[in-house]
């Protein structure tokens, strides 16, 4: 599904912030991406999302070499990936409903064709009564759930979540993690970037990708 081979990244002429990164993300797998703050977790997720090209190395996404993809192919691949950003990236001028439906709207589908689906998902993440509310009046946890719902609405094959429990209380964090596990059981590969060791300890069986000093160590 995702394959990195000797990938390196540097900003300008500076030192490499990611060095010789090699790993695979297989279908239907669950993994944590962890490391101290500033280790490059978000940068690695952006590389997976093809939001920036690597300085060196090979990235293969869904069997396709990232360097050979044109714009249309990149767009098509991104539609297979759901992303939950650390800062949510909800559009403040759209309601919760409209934010969650955004991935479907950008495909120019008729609103009536997905309305019921979006409402059902909003209820599933506990935002059934907040769908007409704008993000600035949502709590941190509600924004988090709205961002997760937006990432899930397309039924992605791969879910990337950047610190998805960073803004919520422990109880809600456990509920969100259960939600990700359910998603994993339904066939989606999940990558959760977090530096919360306690959270990872609750999921002993999960694979861990640990970033440190620009290098990646894998603990299966």
């Amino acid at each position, binding site marked *: 599904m995702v394959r990195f081979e000797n990938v390196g*990244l540097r*900003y*300008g002429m500076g030192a490499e912030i990611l060095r010789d990164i090699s790993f695979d993300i297989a279908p239907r797998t669950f993994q944590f991406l962890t490391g101290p703050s500033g280790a490059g977790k978000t940068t690695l997720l952006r590389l997976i*999302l*093809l*939001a*920036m*090209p690597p*300085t060196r190395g090979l990235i293969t996404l869904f069997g396709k070499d990232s360097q050979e993809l044109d*714009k*249309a192919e990149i*767009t098509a691949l*991104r*539609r297979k990936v759901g*992303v939950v*950003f650390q800062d949510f*990236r*909800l*559009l403040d*001028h*759209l*309601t919760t*409903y*409209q934010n969650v439906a*955004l*991935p479907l*709207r*950008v*495909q*120019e589908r008729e*609103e*009536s064709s997905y*309305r*019921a689906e979006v*409402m059902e998902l909003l209820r599933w993440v506990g935002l*059934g*009564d907040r*769908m*007409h509310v704008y993000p600035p009046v949502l709590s941190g946890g509600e924004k988090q759930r709205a961002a997760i719902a*937006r990432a899930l609405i*397309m039924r992605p094959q791969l879910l990337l979540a950047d610190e998805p429990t960073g803004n919520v209380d422990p109880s809600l964090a456990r509920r969100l993690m259960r939600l990700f596990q359910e998603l994993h059981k339904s066939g989606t590969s999940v990558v959760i970037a977090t530096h919360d060791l306690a959270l990872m300890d609750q999921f002993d069986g999960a694979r861990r990708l640990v970033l440190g000093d620009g290098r990646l160590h894998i603990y299966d």
Partner: protein
Amino acid sequence: MNPSPDMAARPPIETVDLTDAWSDTPLVPAETVAGRSLMLVIAIMTFLAALTAGFAIVLAGAARDWRGDVAMEMTVQVMPRTGRDLDADAAKAARVVAAFPGVAEARAFTRQESEDLLAPWLGAGLDLSQLPTPRLIAVRRDPKAQLDEIGLRAALDAALPNAVLDNHGAWMQRLDTMARVVVGAAAGIFVLVLIAMALAVSFATRGAMAGNREIIEALHFVGAADGFVARQFQFHFLRLGLRGGAAGGGAAILLFLVLGLLSRHWASSAGGEQAEALFGSFTLGWSGIASIVLISLGAAMLAGLVSRAIVFRALRSFFAAPD
């Protein structure tokens, strides 16, 4: 307090129709685009472009009328010669020309008419018999028949040694050149105005993109194609262009209507006659008004297309290598 009947009758959330709220929410917030000032710039530019085009149309029409009038007329000059009767020569020349095929009318200017023509330069109360001035014969072509100018010259030469035919060719050449220069200058100004408007729209688009970078990034990450993102901006600028174009084009049409009314009102004055001789009656006509409407629509389309092109160009480098 009891709930109102409206509240009690509110449908469950599953059946709430969100379509209106949905369609009314552009993905690029309107307030992030420098809307009002850009609309004013587009209105002013459209006004100037329409004004330039309108004046070019009026002048081109006037020049066409001048050319038509001048081309339909010729002048025969009968030169004074020692020992010849100028009045008799003028009458003979008029008879020869009038009888020539393709000539509708040949009228010799009377002595009084000739004196009136020269009065602005030589003063009133002139006695032409004291001056060796030629006598003029105004010749009007028959618009339905072909006139053999070479044959007419030959006939005049054979009849009189002192008659010269002037077909106003030099005048027409000058008018033609002047009309071309005026229309060319107007086209140049028109193009410059459009370029200035395109640049203003491009700056505004760049500003709007910079202000909405996070929205653009979020749209990409949820799977929006470049074309979809570009359309969100194009929609805004097309709408601004339509508003600005309508205001500018409408003002230009109004100005020409007012000028047309004023020129008709002042037509009887000396200045008004001069202006009418130069520019016609300042009337654009339906074709001129249609041209201004097209310019206004063109301005709106230009705004939309420029913004689309700028967005596409910017998106090409949106996910480029890090600096």
